[in-house]
């Protein structure tokens, strides 16, 4: 019972998308929509770059989306999640412009990391020593991984895509 609740909670945490009926998104590139979340599934439509879509659900590395003309599965990284406006971001971007209508984060008492502030920054030996005191050995890392049930997997580095 408890376990069920826990796992339900976990699912909720892992995929906030599931909790929403339809999150909006924007296509980051042209891609096919497929009948199922597999690369060899039947193509049921396509999206073009900057198309607005509704995100219906997520499964592994796939999103089920609804475009103007069809509903289907598309790779996770082909769609940018979120966005307040359903008609794309360009209008809101222009509206916010340089004046910035967005939320203002209070910076009182917190030093910033602007280019100017970094230029003026002075070396802090005490903080450096503190940082150094946390240094771990490769073996420490290994132990930590083991405690979390992580095990190393081999995979070659991804190559840059053409063009």
């Amino acid at each position, binding site marked *: 019972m408890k376990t069920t609740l826990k796992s339900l909670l976990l699912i909720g945490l892992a995929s906030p998308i599931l909790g929403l009926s339809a999150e909006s998104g924007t296509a980051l590139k042209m891609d096919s929509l497929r009948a199922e979340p597999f690369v060899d599934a039947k193509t049921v439509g396509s999206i073009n770059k900057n198309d607005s879509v509704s995100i219906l659900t997520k499964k592994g590395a796939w999103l089920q989306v609804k475009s103007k003309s069809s509903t289907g599965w598309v790779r996770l990284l082909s769609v940018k999640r979120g966005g307040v406006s359903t008609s794309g971001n360009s209008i809101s971007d222009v509206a916010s412009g340089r004046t910035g209508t967005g*939320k203002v984060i209070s910076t009182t008492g917190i*030093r910033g990391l602007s280019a100017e502030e970094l230029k003026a920054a002075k070396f802090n030996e005490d903080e450096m020593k503190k940082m150094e005191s946390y240094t771990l050995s490769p073996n420490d890392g290994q132990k*930590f991984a083991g405690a979390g049930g992580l095990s190393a997997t081999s995979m070659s580095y991804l190559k840059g895509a053409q063009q």
Partner: protein
Amino acid sequence: MKKISISKLLSSLLLAAGLLSIQANAFDLGKALEDAAKKEIEKAKIGGEEPTPEPEPVAAPAPVIAPASPANPAAAPVAAAELAQPAQPEFNWKNPSKEEEIALGREITGSLLGAAPLVKDEALQKYVNQVGRWVANQSERADLPWKFGVIDSADLNAFAAPGGYVLLTKGLYQKIQSEAQLAGVLGHEIAHIVKKHQLKVLQKQQLLGYGASRLSGLFGKKDKLAKKALNTGAEISARGLDKDAEFEADRMGLTLAYRAGYDAYGLPDVLQTIGQTNKSDSSVALLFKTHPSPDERLAKLGDSIGDKLDNAKAGKTLEKRLYKLN
């Protein structure tokens, strides 16, 4: 003294930057630089903090840079055959040793820590080092003494410096929702260090001809030089790398996190989150200035991944183990 040489080279880098950005008169570099610095300080008006334009003459804490060899290079004449560790005080820009790389990274990181100190939460710092160390173990440079830290800033950003130094801001940490996402972010920074991206930029600047030896004569005393260098090391982090270096770090970072057993989509998840931040928000100003847009990075990553992860073993996200900040 090795210390001087590191400081010297940082000064010369700064000079190089000054030359490029403010078109200083070649005969009055020092003055132009000073003026530029004053202007910058005046601009840096952040609530509460009052930057002191003229730092007190208190000696800047001398960084302890571990000498590469126990032998004192200043004292003994060194045989030319000893190529691996040249005892000359100049920094070996052509082929810096691991120790030189670390010393350089220490200068840069120490200055970043001067801009924003570590978050005072030992458990957090320890946790980030555990995750980072494990991810770094999956790289070709597991031999480096990797060090990680979360700094007290509301900005969204992360920094890497040569030799294995990685910092991320509290603001970014608070956006992270799982250990896999943290692993992805740290993986990206680790990749910069493994590929020596920043080091290469610094080397290139040296090759422009504004080397330490040429310019040191234009500047005054050595202690002044050292101080100036210490005060400005972090400036290097305000300059971006080229776009390709960022895309490469994304690809490698994702791979490193996956190799460590994490869900491969941690880094893309964080890019999604960053992409949802209002572009005009000051917390992402530097990040957006120094990196390609999150959209572009996501699209590039997607292109690189293609179908390569379709049959890959699913990794762990470990939301529960993510250290929660109070």
